[in-house]
């Protein structure tokens, strides 16, 4: 696969700036404004005192006259938010590592050991990727209940890999395919076992793929909602998305400040991680689609 960054035809220096502005920059700017506005609004609401939030006559709603940390303080000290954050971290990290371990082994076996029927298993795993959580959560709830995992982190740690493993395996299979066989054959002749080959040759060479899969899996489990909503009932075991939507709304009273603060602070960790690994993230996302 060749990536061609600059595919302009070589004559676009002839295009005048006003024309290019109308054709490219203006529509691009409008779409980006549309995509970013909800984040701006989230941030503005987080730092706005209640008095300004509900008075559009006296204060311009787009600006903050007296920025405050009151909502964030309320969120961190008056609610279980720190616990939700902790649960989300534990669940995301553990399910990511479990999935990475299982996927590395599976992808290596499918791509490199090529045991009888490995093609079909590979295809079956890809089909697993197409099964959406919204048709699995009801029977899974019954299973989680039977196994006595209900209302605990373990319920999520064990069920998140169901959508992470197919994705990671599929992605890693693509990366393993690019490593030349000759390297493994050399190692085999030198007497290395398959496990040694995997750990010392294949894994280091496909590190970018492992990082991509890991980053993407982490953000997917951080964002997961329907399983966490179904399998967790007590406040101290909830994850951030579930806690924000179920515990910060009392009846008809919406604490918009605290809600927006939860939305903002719950998004910041994934955005920071994403900003460090943009290229890996994009390659994971497009790699899964490109096959």
């Amino acid at each position: 696969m060749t990536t061609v960054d600059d595919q302009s035809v070589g004559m676009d220096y002839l295009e005048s700036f006003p024309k290019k502005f109308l054709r490219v920059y203006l529509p691009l700017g409008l779409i980006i404004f549309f995509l970013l506005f909800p984040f701006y609004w989230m941030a503005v609401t987080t730092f706005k005192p209640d008095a300004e939030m509900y008075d559009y006559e006296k204060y311009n709603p787009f600006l903050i006259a007296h920025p405050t940390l009151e909502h964030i303080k309320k969120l961190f000290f008056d609610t279980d938010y720190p616990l939700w954050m902790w649960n989300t971290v534990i669940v995301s990290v553990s399910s990511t590592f479990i999935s990475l371990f299982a996927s590395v082994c599976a992808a290596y076996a499918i791509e490199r050991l090529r045991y009888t029927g490995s093609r079909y298993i590979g295809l079956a795993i890809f089909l697993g990727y197409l099964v959406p959580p919204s048709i699995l959560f009801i029977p899974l709830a019954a299973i989680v209940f039977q196994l006595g995992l209900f209302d605990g982190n373990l319920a999520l740690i064990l069920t998140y890999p169901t959508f992470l493993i197919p994705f990671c395996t599929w992605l890693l299979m693509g990366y393993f395919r690019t490593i030349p066989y000759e390297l493994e054959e050399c190692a085999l002749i030198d007497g290395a076992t398959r496990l040694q080959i995997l750990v010392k040759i294949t894994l280091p060479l496909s590190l970018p793929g492992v990082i991509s899969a890991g980053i993407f899996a982490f953000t997917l489990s951080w964002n997961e909602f329907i399983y966490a909503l179904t399998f967790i009932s007590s406040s101290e075991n909830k994850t951030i998305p579930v806690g924000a939507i179920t515990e910060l709304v009392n009846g008809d009273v919406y604490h918009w400040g605290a809600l927006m603060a939860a939305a903002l602070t719950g998004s910041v960790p994934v955005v920071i991680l994403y900003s460090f690994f943009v290229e890996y993230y994009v390659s994971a996302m497009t790699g899964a689609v490109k096959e």
Partner: protein
Amino acid sequence: MAVIAEPVAAQVKRSSLWTRAFESRNFLGAMFMVPAIAILILFLAYPLALGFWLGMTDTKIGGVGRFIGFQNFVSLSKDSVFWLSVFNTIFYTVFASIVKFAIGLYLALLLNERLPFKSMVRAIVLLPFVVPTVLSAIAFWWIYDSQFSIISWVLIKAGILTHYIDFLGDPWNARWSVVLANIWRGVPFVAITLLAGLQTISPSLYEAANLDGATNMQRFRHITLPMLSPIIAVVMTFSVLMTFTDFQLIYTITRGGPINATHLMATLSFQRAITGGNLGEGAAISNAMIPFLVAAILLSFFGLQRSRWQQGGRD
């Protein structure tokens, strides 16, 4: 695909059954597959089968159900709320997918131009996809607030409206509002994956077309679209699957209201199974989604085969 050379170590004297087993490709393969297969069978294949079974029972939460055949489907076929949710799901999927595709392709073409800070722009564009959906949906919920909606405020200040829009209180307003939120969330995925596809098209094709005097429109129609069509099929299949089975946005913004006007099949099955306790009925509703999903997957699969065949590749 090249065939692996038989390991040279095969000539070495085997000491025991155990070491021999570890040199057998099938045995080793099975060992390597254990973690993944164990999790996938227990938490993916088994629930999938259990779901079919539950859909044919009258199981309640905490109770044991008995087999009632297609009774759940018969009662659903007379349930107007169920049919409303089917209508809503199709409405939501069709409109959101069409707009996501149009804006996504347009955005991908724009991002493929020569731009300053290109990689930063691309990173920013992807943000709505990265941020947890529920958390950005909460922001949309606040943007659609009936008294303090910023959209209404701007439109009133601009003199276009005289009173606040009731975004989530009116059935059709609510439907379009959640479609808009879904578009916002889905455009980046479509745009960035299509951009990756655009970048693999060789510039020499465009140069040749230029020499032949092709216009912009002709280049797009006869080079970009055909070269992009396989990836378009895959991206749109994913997008349609995700939209059709969407749960998070609806549950956060409207919870299916007002008067079930935005209930999708996924949210309705949650309401019946988990909130209402009728696991069997809820499972029947989720099973009813499966034919639609299979149809979407088959459609794109055969479309892909056909275009591959047309381009002279083997399948």
